[in-house]
């Protein structure tokens, strides 16, 4: 379980997150919604340690992460897929997966872990030696998600995986995420701008606006038709 209590994040003088309180449970997908600049990325980065929280506490299963450096949090099972489809573009598909696996817990041998990835995404097997920068957007996102799962994380943080992808690819990726997290009781936090898609697979959601939580509830509550107008008001 991931718990944020009164977390504040600032970049120099600019406040990105104000007093965030959030709980994400194992086996559940927690959606974090909002327009650009709302603070979704800052929230995920704060959990992963890529940005330092100015105050408040971030705990996983009760263990305080606040002072822990990024790579050690990764060792503890926190795995972040950053926004903007970030990959090691100059490296091949397999090399990317190799790095992700090498610095993970290595419970499964690489060859086996690799096969699992290729089973879920056969296209990656076809392109295994190609430079990841040359893949299409959807394929890159598959690779990113696989780089996260190959580390067998307990806490999966995904920042806008659907960005710029066709709905059918998004379905595929989201399906994979759901299946993976259900079977392993992973705690998933999914930041998305596209509320509709995220709410289809999420169990609960938080809506951010200007760094604050302005709405929260179960996915069913948020999906109700009359809530949509509230949502768009939150965005626009």
């Amino acid at each position, binding site marked *: 379980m991931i718990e944020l209590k009164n977390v504040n994040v600032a970049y120099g003088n*600019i406040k990105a997150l104000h007093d965030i309180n959030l709980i994400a449970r194992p086996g559940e997908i927690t959606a974090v919604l909002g327009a650009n600049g709302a603070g979704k990325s800052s929230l995920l980065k704060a959990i992963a340690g890529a940005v330092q929280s100015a105050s408040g506490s971030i705990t996983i299963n009760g263990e305080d992460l606040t002072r822990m450096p990024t790579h050690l949090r990764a060792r503890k099972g926190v795995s972040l897929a950053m926004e903007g489809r970030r990959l090691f573009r100059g490296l091949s598909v397999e090399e990317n997966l190799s790095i992700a696996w090498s610095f993970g817990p290595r419970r499964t041998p690489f060859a086996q872990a690799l096969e699992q990835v290729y089973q879920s995404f056969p296209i990656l097997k076809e392109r295994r030696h190609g430079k990841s920068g040359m893949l299409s957007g959807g394929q890159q996102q598959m690779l990113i998600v696989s780089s996260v799962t190959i580390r067998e994380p307990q806490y999966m943080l995904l920042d806008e995986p659907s960005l710029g992808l066709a709905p059918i690819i998004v379905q595929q990726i989201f399906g994979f995420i759901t299946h993976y997290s259900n079977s392993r009781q992973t705690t998933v936090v999914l930041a998305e701008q*596209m509320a*509709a898609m*995220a709410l289809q697979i999420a169990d609960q959601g938080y809506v951010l606006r200007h760094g604050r939580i302005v709405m929260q509830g179960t996915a069913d509550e948020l999906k109700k038709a009359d809530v*949509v107008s509230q*949502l768009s*008001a939150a965005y*626009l």
Partner: protein
Amino acid sequence: MNALRQTVSKILGHPATIIVALLVLWFWPASTDRSTVQLLSFVMLNILLAQSINLLTGVAGQISLGHAGFFAIGAYGSALLVKSAGAPVIAAIFGGTAITAVVGWLLAVPAGRVKEFYLAMMTSGFGLLCFEIIKEWNDVTGGVMGLSGIASPTLKSLTILGMKIDGIDYFRILLVAAAIVLWLLRNFIQSHHGRAFFAIQASEIAAGSIGIDQARTKRRAYSISAAIAGLAGAFYAHLVGYLGPDSFTIMRSVEVLVMAVVGGIGTIIGPILGAVLFTYLPSKLQAFAAYQFMVYGLILMVVFLLFRKGFAGAIAEPARFIPGRALRAVGLTAAGVPARVDASAAQTAQSSVAAAGHQTDAAPLLEVRDLVKRFAGLVAVDGVSLALHPGRITALIGPNGSGKSTLVNVASGIYTPSSGQVILRGKEIGGQASHAIAAQGVIRTFQDPRLVPSFTVRENILLGAHLRYRSSMIASALRLPGVMKEEQAHLLRATQVMEVAGLSGVADQLLESLPYGYRRLTEVARAMMADPDVLMLDEPAAGLSEGELGRLAEVIRYIKSQGKSVLLIEHHMDFVNDIVDDVVVLDSGRVIYRGDMSGMRRDPAVIEAYLGIQQVAHD
């Protein structure tokens, strides 16, 4: 602490101090021995050298590890002109200086294209190349044996204009020359030319956005710096009467850098202190020679960590970059009518504000037509057309990656279009350099405000008027009356701009000491000084507090009232809602909505782009 530093600055900069110092230096040699006179002469030379590298590295931000090269060219140039061409000494010194200036200008061409450590390597290469040429070109430079018998007071062979010059006379010549050069330098640095050098150091891209031609400015910096170093070299040749390659090694380049850095780069007084310290120490401390390298090494290791502003920065407040006289003429506060102002200066200011006027024709000022921009397989802007009209504020919004910033970058000349047109007042400008587009009245700001951190708010804002200055470099260096008038006019206008932007209270505070909101407003104010017809603001609201947002909105409305066209890239919907006339929404590089804010909120395509929720259209 600060009060002490300000007092020290006042004393150091006071005309009385300078006159006393000059007098003391003039008369001192008459009562002392020859070696002291020589030492004092070396101090003068090192002051020139330190100032030369200061201008290039400290002010313009171009690191140089090869200044010994310029020193050498000036020295050998002048010596050869006297020895081989029989030129009179004064002419030879000027000649050596001129040759060095030309070489500096030429070096700027390749050097201006690279930055940071590539530049450090290139300048090292230049310095080493000069050294090799001196060492090996036996026929001309005498190679390792060197050039001897150069006219000099040491050899009692120096005559100028028919008069025999001895050591003391030569020192006095150096003193006068150094004083003149320092005076010219100070005037230059305090002029808009000098401030442009600082702008290049702070951010070349931002400098281009207010119309500063980066390549040309760098060439100027290189040639002036080279000229001063060459002058020092020419004087050196005639001081010692003998030249050998050992005086022009890489260590000499390092020494010159150390002098400037330790003294304090970016100021006038810093290099003087550094030069004095590093000329005096090695000669007085015999033991110093053995430890010289170690000491230099240690100094370089710690100076940037401990004393970023050098010795001068530690003891004194640096001189500002606007002539004090102009500031006093205009008055230091923005409130109320400035006292004792030049009547013509006030008029110039008024007319430049009024000339903005109101445009009533509806033809678009800036248009993009079917603009496409590709980056290695990714299409960032995919056939966008939009038009900006005078006196209207247009918002450009869209989800991440929709192409908003890229569009503005193309329109402002940072990128060239892959296809399509950018049209300003009916003329195609697509593909022109950013400074050229800025010169035609299109100014933009950046997501991350790029200002000169060591300047005050006022000095930063004044940079915006760069294109409107007419004074030449020589006029500025001589501080002719017209130059002062021009400064005053722009200062008056800056005061008014600061009033509108709510910055009057912090006008003379250093930018780096102010919170983010002030920097943002300063950047917008700087853009206003440029008096553009089209102003493009890239996410100006990000990170501002409620109060600051209000002020920003007022500023933008003011700009609109002046008949300008404003394009606003924003995510902050509330902020945008209150001030815009039109909204254009981009998604994946294409326009998906044009109209007003309320329509945008209800538009199904927009809602789908943002939320992914398909909406049945309803009203």
